[in-house]
C-alpha cells in the first residue's frame, strides 16, 4: 500500500496541505539559496554598486579581489591551518575514540559502565564554560598561541560523542568471531585493528563528519588561544579580516565566498555522507 504524499493522487484537502507545504519549502529554499548567490555576485562588485544596485549582476567578472584575499590577505595560510587542525584532530579523535570504545564495549569487568559514563559525561558538559581552567591548564603546559592546544581541546571535545557512537557499533560485533580470532592467535590489538575496526567503518564515517564539521568551523577556542596571525584558522582569520575592511563590502563578500564555497562544493559532492554523519550522532 502506498502511503506516500504525492500530489497527483491526493484528495482535495490533502492537496491543499501539500500545496501549502510546497509553498513553505520553496520559500525556505529561496531564503537559503538567494543569499548565497547574492554573496557570490557581490564579491565581483564595488562597494558602491553593492549598496546602490544590490540585486544587479556584476558588470564584469574579475578575480582580482579573490587574488587579493587569497594571496595578499593570507587566506591560503588560514586555510592550511584549518586543514592541519581538522585532520590532526580527527586522526586522534578516531584513534583514541575507537580504542576507548573497544575498551568499554568488548570487555567484561567491574566499572566498565562507570568508565563509559565518564566518557559520556562530556556530551552534556559545555566546554565553553571550562574556559578559565582551560586557559590556566594551557598556559601551564606552555601551549598557548599554538595549533597544538587547539588540537588537544578538539580531541577532548570530540571523544565523548565518538565513544557513544562507536561503542554502539562495536557492541553489535558477534562475540563468536572475536573468539575465533583469539583462537587463531590474534592479540587484542590485532582484534581491535584488523577484526573489529574494518567492520565498524560506517560508524567511523559518521563520527568523522559529526566531529570534523564543528572542528572546521570552530571559532571560540582559536579566538581565545591564538594570537599570532600566522596561526589563525579560517573562522578567526575571517574575523580579523572583516575587522580590518569594514568599509570595503566587495572585499568582505570575497572573503565570505572564499570561506563558504569550499564547504559548499564538498557538501554537494557527498551530500548523503554529510547528512548521515551530522544526524547520525543524534539518532544513533
Amino acid at each position: 500500500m502506498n502511503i506516500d504524499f504525492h500530489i497527483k493522487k491526493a484528495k482535495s484537502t490533502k492537496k491543499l496541505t501539500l500545496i501549502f507545504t510546497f509553498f513553505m519549502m520553496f520559500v525556505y529554499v529561496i531564503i537559503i539559496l538567494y543569499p548565497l548567490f547574492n554573496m557570490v555576485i557581490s564579491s565581483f562588485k564595488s562597494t558602491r554598486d553593492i549598496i546602490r544596485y544590490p540585486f544587479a549582476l556584476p558588470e564584469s567578472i574579475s578575480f582580482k579581489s579573490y587574488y587579493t584575499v587569497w594571496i595578499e590577505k593570507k587566506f591560503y595560510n588560514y586555510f592550511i591551518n584549518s586543514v592541519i587542525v581538522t585532520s590532526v584532530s580527527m586522526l586522534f579523535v578516531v584513534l583514541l575514540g575507537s580504542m576507548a570504545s573497544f575498551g568499554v564495549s568488548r570487555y567484561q569487568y567491574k566499572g566498565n559502565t562507570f568508565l563509559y559514563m565518564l566518557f559520556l559525561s562530556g556530551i552534556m558538559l559545555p566546554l565553553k564554560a571550562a574556559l578559565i581552567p582551560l586557559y590556566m591548564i594551557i598556559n601551564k603546559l606552555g601551549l598557548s598561541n599554538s595549533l597544538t592546544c587547539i588540537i588537544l581541546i578538539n580531541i577532548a571535545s570530540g571523544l565523548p560523542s565518538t565513544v557513544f557512537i562507536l561503542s554502539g557499533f562495536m557492541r553489535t560485533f558477534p562475540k563468536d568471531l572475536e573468539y575465533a580470532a583469539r583462537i587463531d592467535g590474534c592479540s587484542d590489538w590485532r582484534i581491535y585493528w584488523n577484526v573489529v575496526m574494518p567492520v565498524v567503518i560506517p560508524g567511523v564515517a559518521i563520527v568523522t563528519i559529526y566531529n570534523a564539521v564543528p572542528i572546521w568551523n570552530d571559532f571560540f577556542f582559536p579566538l581565545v588561544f591564538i594570537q599570532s596571525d600566522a596561526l589563525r584558522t579560517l573562522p578567526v582569520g575571517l574575523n580579523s579580516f572583516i575587522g580590518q575592511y569594514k568599509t570595503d563590502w566587495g572585499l568582505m563578500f570575497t572573503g565570505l565566498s572564499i570561506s563558504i564555497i569550499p564547504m559548499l562544493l564538498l557538501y554537494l559532492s557527498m551530500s548523503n555522507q554529510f547528512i548521515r554523519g551530522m544526524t547520525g550522532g543524534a539518532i544513533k
Partner: protein
Amino acid sequence: MRIQKTKKQQKYFWIAFFITPGLLMVFVFILLPLFMSMFNSMFDWNNYNRLGFIGLNNFKTLFTGYYYSERFFNAIQNNLKWFVMTMLIQNVFGLYFGYMLSRRINGSEVFKRIFFIPVLFSITAVGFLWGLYLKPNGLINSFLALINAEHLQRAWLGDGKIATYTIILVNIWRWTGFPTLVFMSSVDALPIENIEAAYIDGANELNIFFKIVLPLIVPAITTITVLTIIGSLNVFEQVYVMAGVDGQPNYSTDTICTLFYRTAFGTYDSSSPVIGVGSAMSVIIYLLTFFFSITSISWLQKKEVEI
C-alpha cells in the same frame, strides 16, 4: 592457576591500554576544568592570583552585586528567548518539514539536500554575511524598498528591541535543516505497518500524525530538545559576530556566554580578568545545562511509547 592469573593480568593490561589515552584527554580537558571551576569559584582572586577562601560570596556578587546582577539576569533572559524561539520556530518547522519529507512528497530528495546546506557553514561566515545584509543600507532593507514596503524597514541589528530576535532568526536560518533531517530519519525508521494499519482503519492524516507518529518519535524530540537547551545556553559566536562582545546595542543582545567571556578576559568594566565571579558564572552554566537537560529527558521519557 598461574596461567589464569596472567591471563587476567593481560586482560587488564589491554583494557588500560585501550582506555587510558582517551580517558586522560577527557579528564584533563573536560572533567578537571569542571572541578577547577567549582573550586576557583569559592576563592577571592586578584587577576590570576588566588587569595583567600570566601565561600559562596562570588555567587552572591553575581546575583545581587550592582552591575553583575543586572547584566546577568539580562543575559539569562536573552538565553531564554533563544530557547523559546528556537523550539517554537526552528524545531516546529523541522518537525513539519521532516515529516512531510519522510512521506516522500514530490521533490523531497532535492528539498532535503538544500535544507541542509547552511547547517555546514561556520557560524562566523553566516553571521558576517547576514550582518552585511541586515545593515541599514543592506540587502534586506533594499528588498523591502523594492516591494514598496519601506514602512517595514528597520535597523535590524541597531535597534535594541529587535536585535536579539534578528540574530536568533539568522541562527534559525542556519539550523532548521538539522531537526528537519533528524525528524525525517526517525520517522523513516518507524515500521510502516503501523501507519498502514491506521490508514486501513480510516484514520485521518492529523490523527495519524498526532496519535501514532508523534508518540513514536519522542526519542528524537528528546534529542533535539536537549541539543536546543545546550545550544541556547552556549550562544556566543552568533552574538560576538553580529553584535560584538558587548552584545550591542546597549547589552540588548548579551548572553550568558558573552558576559562570561568579558568577565573572564577582563573587558567587563575594569579591564582585568575577574576569575572568581567568572568561575561562579561557569558553574551556573554547568548547572543550568545539566539541570534542564536531565529534567527534559526524564519528562520526555515518560511520554515514550514502545512499538
